[in-house]
């Protein structure tokens, strides 16, 4: 058994008696992996504990908590998933007062798969695995080196394949709205593939990811057209950090900056005319 998996199993076994259940990943008989709620009363299920491929488990927490608001739960989180629950907490979608986070540090291979800058947890009190440094994101960097015209061409090449499956929206743990602007004919028209340009779906989604995207890359993973849409979200996150000093998913109580009054020096950093 993988050493990290073994360690995770031991940690879960330690936590399980004190909680109603623990959210993690489980492999089924056919070898397919999905999120699962491991319960105290069914300890044998832990034989199927798995860690990869990852899934958007913050949404699993939201689903379970909606039905069982007071439940005492444990949850295995990677860095991105932890940031995910932090953002959802700030948007009143999950309650973390009864949740024990078990941090699972990503391996270098995993981090490289996700082009992840922060493959480690920051809030979880219990952690498994050694945290490693972030890895570069050559895709985003490569994109950044392009001129405006090249960027436009790049997206035309990419987005012409978009079949508007809404998979990126569906899988995103930060897309928890009851009603989605992307389904409103006012903002995103229907009936045409490839979608008419400018690509309203992707533009609106990029905007909505502001100060929300936790860089889990689930959207890219589920995209049947292999569109690297996270490039935009990541660049925006960098700009938001630069302009407003906000890092998504890091602090538990810092409010999303775009909702607030300008703080000292922010106006100057926006580059807007004075």
């Amino acid at each position, binding site marked *: 058994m993988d050493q990290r998996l073994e360690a995770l199993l031991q940690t879960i076994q330690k936590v399980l008696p004190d909680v109603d259940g623990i959210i993690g990943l489980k492999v089924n008989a056919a070898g397919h992996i999905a999120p699962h709620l491991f319960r105290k009363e069914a300890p044998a299920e832990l034989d199927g504990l798995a860690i990869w491929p990852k899934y958007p488990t913050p949404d699993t927490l939201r689903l379970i908590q909606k039905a069982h608001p007071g439940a005492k739960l444990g949850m295995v989180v990677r860095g991105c998933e932890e940031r995910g629950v932090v953002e959802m907490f700030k948007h009143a979608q999950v309650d973390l007062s009864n949740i024990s986070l078990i941090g699972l540090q990503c391996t270098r291979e995993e981090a490289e798969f996700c082009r992840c800058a922060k493959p480690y947890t920051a809030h979880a009190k219990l952690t498994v695995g050694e945290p490693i440094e972030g890895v570069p994101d050559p895709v985003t960097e490569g994109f950044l080196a392009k001129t405006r015209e090249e960027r436009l061409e790049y997206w035309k090449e990419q987005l012409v394949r978009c079949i508007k499956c809404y998979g990126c929206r569906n899988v995103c743990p930060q897309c928890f709205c009851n009603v989605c602007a992307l389904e409103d004919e006012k903002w995103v028209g229907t009936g045409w593939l490839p979608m008419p340009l*400018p690509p309203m779906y992707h*533009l609106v989604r990029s905007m909505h990811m502001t100060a929300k995207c936790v860089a889990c890359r689930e959207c890219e993973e589920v995209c049947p057209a292999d569109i690297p849409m996270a490039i935009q979200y990541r660049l925006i996150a960098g700009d938001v950090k630069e302009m407003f000093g906000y890092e998504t998913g890091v602090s538990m109580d810092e409010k999303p*900056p*775009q909702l607030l009054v*300008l703080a000292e020096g922010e*106006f100057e950093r926006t580059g807007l005319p004075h």
Partner: protein
Amino acid sequence: MPEPKIIGFLCNWCSYRGADTAGMARLKYPPNVKIVRVPCSGRVSPELVLRTFREGADGVMVLGCHIGDCHYSTGNHRAAKRMPVLKKVLEYSGIDPERLCVNWVSAAEGERFAKIITDFTETIRALPPLTEEMTWTKG
């Protein structure tokens, strides 16, 4: 080359009145910008701006009160934080962020208003029509 088509979202209290002031002073500026009145620049959602581009606008303006003068005290602060991000989204999508003009005009600044309109119209005139850029096939 067709004339640029521009929509301006102007807040009711400062910039819209600034436009009125320009009118009362009989200042002349190009007719390309059609003004949509909103209560506050903070009311302008990014979706509204994007939809305007989608509708074929070559440029979109969001004009509000100067920071500190907002009729709603700090409504324009939100615009000042949202719009730069929208500009970045445009930039990363290969759409010239210059096509979105975010600026501030007080009710007294008729001349400033006329100048901003004139300058922005010129800026957009120098760019190709957006609909031309927004086609799937080249040439």
